[in-house]
């Protein structure tokens, strides 16, 4: 599946705005991403495995609230940086 990377995280992905990843759940996909791009996961997921306050993750057009969301191989994942103020 494709994971869309916002500009604040592209220093981890060699400036790529979209990367391929595999996993049966959102948590598995983000762990797989972190193995390829070390450090990326902790910037968006807390040590308690919750999505950080100013990060939103969408699977296709549905907002994911936690990491247990099941995924299909053709899903598109969007990581969004949102609402952090000036």
């Amino acid at each position, binding site marked *: 599946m494709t994971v869309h990377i916002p500009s*604040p*995280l592209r220093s981890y992905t060699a400036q790529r705005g979209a990367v391929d990843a595999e996993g049966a759940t959102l948590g598995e996909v983000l762990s797989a991403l972190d193995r390829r791009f*070390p*450090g990326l996961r*902790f*910037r*968006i*997921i*807390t*040590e*308690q*495995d*919750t999505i*950080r306050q*100013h*990060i939103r993750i969408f699977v296709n057009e549905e907002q994911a609230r936690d990491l247990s969301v099941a995924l299909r191989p053709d899903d598109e994942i969007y990581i969004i*940086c*949102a609402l*952090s*103020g000036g």
Partner: protein
Amino acid sequence: MPPVRPLPRKNITPSLEPATAPVALLVGTRKGAFILRSDRARRTWKLTEPIFLGHIVHHLVLDPRDKRTMLMAARTGHLGPTVFRSTDFGRTWKEAARPPAFPKAPEREKGRVVDHTFWLTPCHANEPNAWYAGTSPQGLFRSDDGGVTWEPFSSINDDPQYRTWMGSVQDGTPDGPKLHSILVDPRDPTHLYMAMSGGGVHESVDGGKTFAPIVKGMEVVEGFDAANVTFHDPHCVRLCPSNPDRLYQQNHCGIYRLDRPSNEWTRIGKSMPKRVGDIGFPMVVHPRDAETAWVFPMDGATVWPRTSPDGKPAVYVTKNAGKSWTRQDKGFPKAHAWWTVKRQAMTADAHEPVGLFFGTTSGELWGSRTGGAGWTCLVRNLPEIYSVEAAEL
């Protein structure tokens, strides 16, 4: 409250020779870090381009043991907290592989989340590559590999009594409760102090395995019980390099001095002028004279503006351990300057005369080559300044 144990006495004496090398000011701001380098005379200064522009940088510290390694506590508005490391004085940076983070809580329990790393302290000179970090909410961490990986101190972070003293997020500063002022006795790497806003001042004599509070003599907001450690709000605590048995503290409720082995703080701010008061955030000590310390008073009246009293900024110095204070405002605006200086944003170098430096939340960086006798604006128009550290090159 557990008793404070006897102090350690191991004969490791730090060098107290005046510095002569150029100075670098390491500036953390709400929108990135900057380095301001001086010439040997500290007359001319050169500012770098922003480092990690857009990152919220709470602290940028040079390792005095190798004078090359720098750690930066950073996050962004969106992205979580991390630590960046440079081993070539800021030319290149790498991110910590495991930044400070609390342990994952068991199922059905609510674990804590590090919002930001707030404070960085190099460990003892005899512990190369070791660092301490304080976080918001209050947590104490240590790295033994130059900041690559960080381990929590369960003695603080998970201790039920300490968790009670830390209180909730509502008991901290508007930017979150913080663990700060991590101090290492230069005579003994196992003798530590740290402070929490809120949550008091604490000491360890066993390298952090256990801590005990030292809050006797410290005042709290009127109507609260000073015996309750939770209510104590030390803003900044400093240890005198020339006499590690002396500590100075700027507190939410006054300026204090502690002379060990006593466990009782003395409110030396009572000798400040009444119209100025003794409220503020930073505390600075002289590198070679334990009688001398500086504060930057701010308005703690009515609704607590936390700006220079009457819009007339001034540093105050004591040269007799707090018996009296002298105003130092030569070079500052005489009126209409409503400055706020945060607790990490004022520092001294080790030259003779001592250089003093501070940054304001309005983005001005001021310096004095004369121990505060005269002041010059070094840089204007920076972002909101969070921290200033003076490093000897």
